[in-house]
């Protein structure tokens, strides 16, 4: 799995940080930071949930990668 983020769509709700803190963090101004663009398998479910509930659709997943 490959994780892509689009900072311009991020609205800083922080849901990804709550759900998958090993993959996502926030800058001081609230915008998402991607910590791990190729997270290990055990985190995939959490990353999928983060992408699903992201209110700005700022997280895209390439499941084939």
């Amino acid at each position: 799995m490959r994780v892509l983020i689009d900072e311009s769509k991020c609205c800083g709700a922080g849901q990804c940080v709550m759900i998958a803190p090993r993959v996502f963090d926030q800058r001081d101004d609230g915008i998402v930071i991607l910590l791990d663009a190729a997270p290990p398998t055990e985190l995939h479910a959490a990353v999928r949930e983060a992408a699903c509930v992201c209110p700005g659709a700022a997280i895209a997943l390439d499941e084939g990668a």
Partner: protein
Amino acid sequence: MSAELLSPLPIKRTCPYAPPAEHRRLREEQPIAKVQLPNGRIAWAVTRHEHIRAILSDPRFSSNRRDPGFPSLSHEPPPASDLKPLLLEMDPPEHGQARRAVLGEFTVQRTQALGSRIQQIVDQHIDAMLAGPKPVDLVQAFSLPVPSLVICELLGVPYADHEFFQTRSSALVNQKTPAEEIARAVGELMMYLGRLVADKAQNPTDDLLGRQIAKQRESGGVNYEDLVSMAFLLLLAGHETTANMISLSTLVLLQQPDKLAALQRDPSKTLAAVEELLRYFTIAEHALGRVAKEDVELGGVRIAAGEGVLLLANTANRDPAVFGNADELDLERGSRNHLAFGFGPHQCLGQNLARLELQIVIDTLFRRIPGLRPAVPVDELPFKDETTVYGIREFPVTW
């Protein structure tokens, strides 16, 4: 739009906080349906999860509450207003810029740093309840003052003035409040906040408003109107929402003691429980609406430019297409895919603060007052059926 009209909205919740049967029927049979609003206007009621998510993510729908097509459940027309638009009324690109200016105050990290102070506030209010007479009204003794104190401290509003805010924010979210009273409450709040912001510009403080003033000063100049409008929204949003979630959550957990006992055995489950309580009550449902800026085809209907859409998120949060056993309160469900905080770029700015407050309240209240129980029969409790934010007006408890 020509219409065979359904019963006028709003329709009361049942049992007492489930979506009305009429809205469920709409979700199954007519998920985007024409309805009549209390002011006589026609709007579309949207009851499915997928459609509400789609609308809240679609820039063809506007958040401008001052547009005459914006669906209102108030009986009164909105007061003519020269106020600067609130964050929740803005559209792109203004909205993104204004939200980003304050976003840093609400990061997960910043919010979690407030935990020990919130715990203190919760404990102090429980101490006072235990030391005082019983029965006591949980709303006045606990549910309202705790979030009120938290938001006042965060913003830098002296808590001595919290009663002033509480009475006026209650008036503003009541759909039966007469227009002139709303205008007066808004005016008083704006005047107060104007003085407060001016004072903080003179005497810098380390709180949200103080930091915003400093930040704006660095980048060229302080915009007092913007700051007052932002403070107004955050105070209003911080008062009624969390307060009502505290009262409702307390009530439902007292009514389902086996679920409460399971939570108390394992506090690591509280955060998932909070998420489910948010879904189950969806208290701010009546605050969710949009107005179409252009014609939009959705779910087999054509929503024309200028028409309002009322997003009935409480019904959508029981949508069986998304949630199994949707009508059941399952504290271990842990799904965050609900619409209690809205969706899209406007999703609640204070959501992680609300989660943290509820988590601390649930972990603390029942542990410190083990015999807590309603002091009146539950079917006599006054539920807020005529407010933008659902809740309980008065909740006498004893122990």
